[in-house]
């Protein structure tokens, strides 16, 4: 009986992904406990978020592939409509209009697009499998740009970048010509001055701060300075769990969310960082392997897009904490406190599992 229940629960769960996700989540609980100053309340709330997100992952893992393909378009349209509604009647918080108040909860429609965009593109390319033409890429590009612009207008640069990246990965994997890619890059660089002018002051400040954090050590540069101090002072072995002075004495801002990696690096040192990065690399590698072996064009592109998006989270967050990238609001996957990102990311992992296990069960 119990065996049969376990078999039912575990039927669509990829064992390797499951082990990696569990290890990273466990690390996350430890770090969050320290980052929240030993707050049982915060930690409990984090564990509850994890439980919800794991449930979502399990559900995603159990959705058959053809259902997934079928919900791609409706999900995309649903997300797009929500974004437009936010544009009109969204709730403003911290100077940005990102939230939609549903009365009982507030949701962030831009989060939906992180999954909906790669899914939509994968579905679109799948329809034109083997007859892909240039105009398909143009259409696909428009499908990416419209939600990205809507999100960037909120303004939420971090999420816009992630959604754009997710879309770009699918385009790239689908075979967007290298020459065109090169052309886009040149156009992008040419557009930089215009892009710069369209940035909000606080966004410009963040970029300038990256170049020279000391020009405003108590203002915009404060995050970067304090996080590099935390990281650097951790040394090779770290200061030990709960012993990070930068985090425990509250010098690190946003230490349980976007800057939690600095807490981890301070307390567990370079050794801990290498272990965590290894776990992430293995998880991403597993995702790429799943993509390589996926049965359909749709599943290949979706798995590749989701995996590379996950990777983008990791490197943007680590780059920001390490002082390599400007401060953009991107959490460290499966570690940072915050339910929305956790659900989205584990939903993505669930999709990978679905793609993996359905290939095994349903041979095409």
């Amino acid at each position: 009986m119990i065996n049969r229940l376990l078999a039912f629960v575990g039927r669509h769960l990829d064992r390797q992904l499951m082990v990696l996700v569990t290890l990273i989540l466990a690390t996350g609980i430890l770090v969050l406990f320290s980052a929240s100053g030993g707050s049982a309340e915060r930690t409990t709330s984090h564990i509850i978020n994890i439980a919800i997100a794991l449930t979502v992952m399990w559900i995603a893992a159990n959705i058959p592939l053809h259902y997934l393909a079928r919900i791609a378009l409706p999900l995309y349209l649903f997300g797009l409509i929500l974004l437009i509604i936010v544009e009109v009647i969204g709730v403003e918080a911290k100077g940005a209009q990102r939230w939609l108040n549903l009365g009982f909860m507030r949701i962030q429609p831009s989060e939906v697009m992180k999954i909906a965009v790669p899914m939509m593109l994968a579905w679109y390319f799948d329809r034109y499998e083997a007859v892909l033409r240039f105009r398909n890429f143009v259409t696909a590009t428009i499908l990416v740009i419209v939600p990205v612009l809507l999100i960037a207008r909120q303004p939420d640069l971090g999420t816009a970048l992630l959604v754009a990246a997710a879309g770009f990965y699918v385009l790239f994997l689908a075979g967007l010509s290298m020459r065109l890619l090169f052309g886009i890059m040149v156009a992008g660089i040419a557009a930089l001055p215009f892009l710069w002018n369209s940035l909000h002051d606080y966004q410009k400040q963040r970029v300038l701060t990256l170049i020279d954090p000391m020009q405003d050590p108590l203002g915009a540069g404060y995050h970067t300075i304090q996080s590099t101090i935390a990281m650097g002072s951790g040394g090779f072995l770290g200061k030990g769990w709960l012993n990070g002075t930068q985090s425990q004495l509250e010098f690190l801002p946003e230490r349980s969310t976007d800057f939690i990696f600095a807490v981890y690096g301070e307390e567990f040192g370079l050794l801990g960082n290498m272990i965590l990065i290894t776990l992430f690399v293995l998880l991403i590698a597993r995702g790429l392997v799943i993509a390589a072996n996926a049965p359909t064009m749709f599943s290949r592109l979706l798995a590749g897009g989701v995996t590379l998006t996950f990777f983008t989270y990791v490197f943007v967050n680590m780059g920001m904490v390490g002082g390599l990238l400007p401060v953009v609001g991107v959490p460290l996957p499966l570690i940072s406190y915050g339910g929305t990102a956790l659900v989205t990311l584990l939903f993505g992992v669930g999709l990978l599992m679905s793609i993996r296990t359905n290939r095994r069960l349903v041979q095409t």
Partner: protein
Amino acid sequence: MELRDHQRELHLFQMRLAIAAFVVAGIFVVILSRLFYLQVIQHDYYELLAEQNRVNIVPVVPHRGLILDRNGVTLASNYAAYTLEITPSQVGDLNALIGELSNLIEITPKDRRRFQKLLEEEPDFSSIPIRTRLNDEEVARFAVNRYRFPGVQINARLFRHYPNNEVASHVVGYIGRLSEADFSRLQQKGLAYNYTKSDYIGKVGLEEYYEQELRGVTGYEHVETDANGHSIRTLRSILPVSGNNLLLALDVRLQRVAEAAFGDYRGSLVAIDPETGGVLALVSRPGFDPNLFVEGIEPAQWAALNDSPDHPLNNRALQGVYPPGSTFKPFMALAGLELGKRTASYTINDPGYFVLGGSGHVFRDWKAGGHGIVDMHKAIVQSCDTYFYGLAQDLGIDMIHDFIAQFGFGRRTGIDIAGEVGGLLPSREWKEQRFNQRWYVGDTISVGIGQGYNLVTPLQLALATSIIANGGRIFRPHLVQQVQNSQTNDLTTIEPYPLAEVPLQPRYLDLVRNAMVDVTRPGGTAAWAGRGAKYSFAGKTGTAQVIGLRGQQYDEDSIAKRHRDHALFIGFAPAEAPKIAVAIMVENGGHGSSTAAPIARKVLDYYLLGIEPKALATSAHDEGSEGD
């Protein structure tokens, strides 16, 4: 065809996936390199920064040394008082907070101004006093309401206090907040490590001169502090070392008597123990209350002191320069005797004036009609100008300069307060350099009676008098007799030995001293002041002209008060074994005999006999006050 495209697309996808994997690996290598750079290569640097973040080094101000007079009476002390302090980094709207606080505890506009000034100077994390010297009721009232004022606390701090207020204010001086200029001076001397920018430092007087003795060594507490400025715990503390105490030669009771003796007159008095060079009293009138300066003086009070025509902030004893007038004559007499230009029995017949041979220029004696037959004794007792005109001419400026210079005229005495000036002992070279003019014989004649270019400070005059009193020994005058080490209580005595000696023959000294004793006896210029003295009282009166009325009679009352002559007096007693030598200058006091000599008498009576002076007699001008 379609199948081939399938294959081609799969192949393309796998190619692209491989590229992506390659990029992923590359980026992780970059991130790991960056972490290696931060956590291994730059580790020491960031560890230091983290320590600087975490550890707040709080200076602990040492107890400043006390200043005590020769009998142990306190001239400068510290007392603990409660201050209400604000830590600006923990407060949002400072003005609103101060407004709220002022409903509870009185905060004057002066308090606000001082707070603003300190706020501009201090780093964010330190706490800044908004009110000092809270009384018990105010402390209690704040304690009850404390929860309403985060970032505000009551601290016990030490304050400097000068219990004698105006008495000896120029000697003791005062401390004040460290200024930018003070700090850069300390940096030049390499002493800045011992101060924080919110510290106090001696500004004037002994507080300034002995700053390094009084200061002590600042202690430090290493306090672990969180980002909000809350102290978590003390990691380490280095205790401060208290400053050393100063034990003065000065007798504050004598000082008080001397200051009172001036009445409303401006002027200065210096009393020296001829046996040690210790300064027994050093008066500069008017004085000021040094307590006004400690917490920063009010602009209005500052303006009142600084702009007053009486210049109360000037230390006249070492900064005021005056012609010595007839107090110069005993030194001239010694010059004449020692250099062989005069003998005790040499006499002149004084017609009341002196005619300079050759030019025919006439120099008048203060007494119309003259003193008749005058020897050296009588010349000093009656202050005969004509005698000294002739002596000056016979000596010549070079001899006068070289002999008189031995008594310390024309250069700083080296007393232990800053700001002393050197006065002026004229010489041939000086005049050529200063005016590019040669020295005339006529110049020498004026110098002979202490007028002309001569300028002395009361301190120089007192030192020179003490040299006559002690038989020629020269001490560096010093206010501090001993420094008491705060840790060991060991006493270090300051220079109790003479620096040099003026070679004077005892018989010449006796002649001059005896004449000076007779100055205060009937027939002398200070007879009135010396009447009834129970000890042998040697002295010499003097008058320094303020405006050029040389050699003419003038009516004192018709001249504006500030144009009246300065009155001078030097003296010592008991003449046979002097214990005290004084020099007194009373600005616009008229004749030395009428205003300066009576002050000396009161000071000597008190010091030698312990007699408290009575109210100033009003008959001073009527009785026997002849000459200058």
